[in-house]
């Protein structure tokens, strides 16, 4: 046992050294990423004129490009660092978690992507209000969109603070706040200058770097284990700190205490993805439904392969770095991938992976911000407040101002929640997307008798149920990790609201529809039906 400890000790020593010596290297690699992407963004933004240019990149991306951008958007720091770390420490349960994120894409591929592309222009609300009453449906859809974006954004910004302490060796509050502000300002610059086109390019570049880095590390880990996956698993078991040691190969370590909590999470993961507004908005950046389909196919391959790589990386980190070292490192679970990079390729690979992790946060917050801004400017300002009477460039002007406001709010929020446990926010974003957005999307695409009342009930009901259940749960009350530590008791026993709020969202959509007295316009319904399947109108409209 004392012999086995030696390599760990070396890594610990090296990690401490890194924290002192390499911030300069890490920052320069990140600086290079920023310089390159900023150059691309400025070049790409030269002919950003119309709303379609700003929100939907002129619908000029190809399926493969958009597939990379979707992967870049979707593989957030939570996916990359979080899943690697979860596998390194809890083994199988981390892998189990990643599968929900992948299978979810089949909902997007089969039911949502092409039909959305054919019926909408810029936002999710375009589709939902197509055949229902504009005002109430757009307002509800914009509110759920803003809620999902806000939760997700806050989680990313808070994550940035944690990453800083891990990667740059900045532990004091002020330093972390400055870095959060830098991320926020960079993001505002990207989105203001580049619009959707610039944001998309940042995501494409980031996806290349992330997947490339993961492939290099995976091959490296496998090479150490003689390209034998079984050997890797055995060395992970040998280095495991669990009792019994091979517990990491089977489910139960992370979710075993409360399986219903995981089931509730799994429902939200698999149904939430196709309701995430920033994912839906990506379908509008391609010219046709066929390209939207190709985007999702590319995204599925890239995301699927990436999660297979994280399986190797996670067990690799467990074997080469060790669960105890990871848990003790600043950043905890999230430090598994960076520490593995360090153990394999020294400071240079660590610097590269750190820069990719920052780029990840930057790309994801940019995507969320442009989605939230588009929803506010296009749905609330142009269509609800001004009822469509907006001068040609007025909407984009409002969208740009919204970007600045959201950027500032994100920075303040990110600084405000520092040190808080906000890991639940990503799961909450998925739960809201699945409870409030997906039912209405599916009903309006597939169910003729769906009505305005059904849509409004489902969206507000799903949103409220998800948030209220979280507020009543152990996330907020009664445990060591709660927002209010060891205060009160939770009324709702699970950390994830999906198991109740998602069925409720679907139920309210049905109930509101069957109790509606006002019938919807049958002509609009027929038009939506025909256009959603044939692409008539959507595909021609963009050939300027």
């Amino acid at each position, binding site marked *: 046992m004392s012999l086995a400890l030696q390599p760990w000790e070396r890594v610990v020593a090296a990690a401490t050294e890194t924290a002192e010596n390499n911030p300069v290297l890490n920052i320069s690699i990140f600086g290079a990423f920023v310089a390159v992407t900023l150059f691309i963004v400025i070049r790409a933004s030269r002919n950003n004129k119309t709303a379609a240019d700003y929100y939907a990149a002129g619908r000029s991306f190809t399926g493969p490009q958009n597939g990379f951008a979707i992967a870049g958007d979707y593989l957030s720091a939570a996916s990359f660092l979080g899943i690697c770390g979860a596998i390194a420490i809890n083994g199988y349960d981390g892998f189990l978690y990643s*599968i929900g994120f992948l299978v979810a894409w*089949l909902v997007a591929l089969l039911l949502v992507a092409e039909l959305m592309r054919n019926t909408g222009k810029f936002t999710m609300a375009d589709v939902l209000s197509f055949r229902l009453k504009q005002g109430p449906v757009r307002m509800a859809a914009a509110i759920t969109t803003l809620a999902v974006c806000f939760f997700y954004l806050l989680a990313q910004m808070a994550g940035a603070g944690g990453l800083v302490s891990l990667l740059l060796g900045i532990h004091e509050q002020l330093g972390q706040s400055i870095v959060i502000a830098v991320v926020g300002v960079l993001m505002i610059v990207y989105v203001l200058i580049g619009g959707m086109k610039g944001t998309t390019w940042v995501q494409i570049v980031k996806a290349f770097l992330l997947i490339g880095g993961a492939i290099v590390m995976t091959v490296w880990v496998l090479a150490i284990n003689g390209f034998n996956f079984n050997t890797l698993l055995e060395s992970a078991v040998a280095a495991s700190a669990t009792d019994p040691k091979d517990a990491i*190969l089977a*489910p139960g370590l992370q979710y075993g205490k409360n399986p219903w909590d*995981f089931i509730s999470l799994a429902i939200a993961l698999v149904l939430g993805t196709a309701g995430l507004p920033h994912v839906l908005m990506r379908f509008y950046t391609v010219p046709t439904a066929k390209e939207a389909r190709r985007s999702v196919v590319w995204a*599925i391959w890239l995301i699927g392969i990436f999660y297979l790589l994280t399986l190797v990386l996670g067990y690799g980190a467990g074997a080469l770095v060790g669960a105890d070292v990871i848990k003790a490192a600043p950043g905890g679970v999230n430090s598994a991938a960076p520490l593995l990079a360090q153990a394999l390729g020294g400071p240079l690979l660590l610097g590269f992976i750190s820069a990719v992790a920052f780029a990840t946060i930057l790309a994801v917050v940019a995507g969320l911000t442009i989605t939230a801004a588009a929803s506010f400017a296009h749905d609330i300002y142009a269509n609800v407040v001004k009822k469509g009477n907006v001068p040609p460039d007025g909407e984009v002007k409002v969208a740009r101002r919204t970007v600045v406001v959201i950027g500032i709010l994100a920075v303040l929020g990110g600084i405000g929640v520092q040190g808080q446990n906000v890991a639940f926010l990503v799961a909450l974003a998925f739960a809201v997307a699945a409870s409030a957005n997906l039912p209405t999307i599916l009903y309006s695409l597939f169910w003729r008798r769906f009505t305005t009342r059904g849509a409004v009930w489902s969206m507000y009901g799903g949103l409220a149920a998800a948030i209220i259940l979280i507020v009543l749960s152990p996330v907020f009350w009664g445990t060591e990790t709660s927002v209010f530590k060891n205060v009160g008791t939770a009324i709702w026993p699970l950390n994830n609201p999906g198991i109740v709020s998602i069925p409720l969202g679907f139920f309210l959509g049905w109930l509101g529809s069957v109790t509606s007295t006002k019938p919807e316009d049958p002509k609009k319904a027929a038009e939506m039906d025909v256009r959603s399947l044939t692409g008539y109108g959507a595909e021609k409209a963009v050939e300027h």
Partner: protein
Amino acid sequence: MSGSPADASPPGGIDYIAEENDPKFVELKRRHRSFVLPMTVAFLVWYFAYVLLSSFATEFMATPVWGAVNVGLLLGLGQFVTTFAITMGYVSFANRRLDPVSAEIRADLEKQEASA
């Protein structure tokens, strides 16, 4: 490009209710739904079966198959395989059975609009 919904609609002249009842369109809709709906049910059932096994049948999932590889790992990798397979199956189905019909209907509608 003010973004009002009226702008999004192609110019009038098309009777969408009649078009919706056109045999060609009815057939397109039938083909689309009879593929995507059962497939969605199938992959959701398979995914939740896997989640339930991982939650309540941990002993079974831990059964070794070959070396350190156990039933749980194989079923998990099976999720990847079925996801990739359904993706490829849908693309091939859509290319062969959906795209030609929808292109034909789109061309018809464009002609109708031009003559209206």
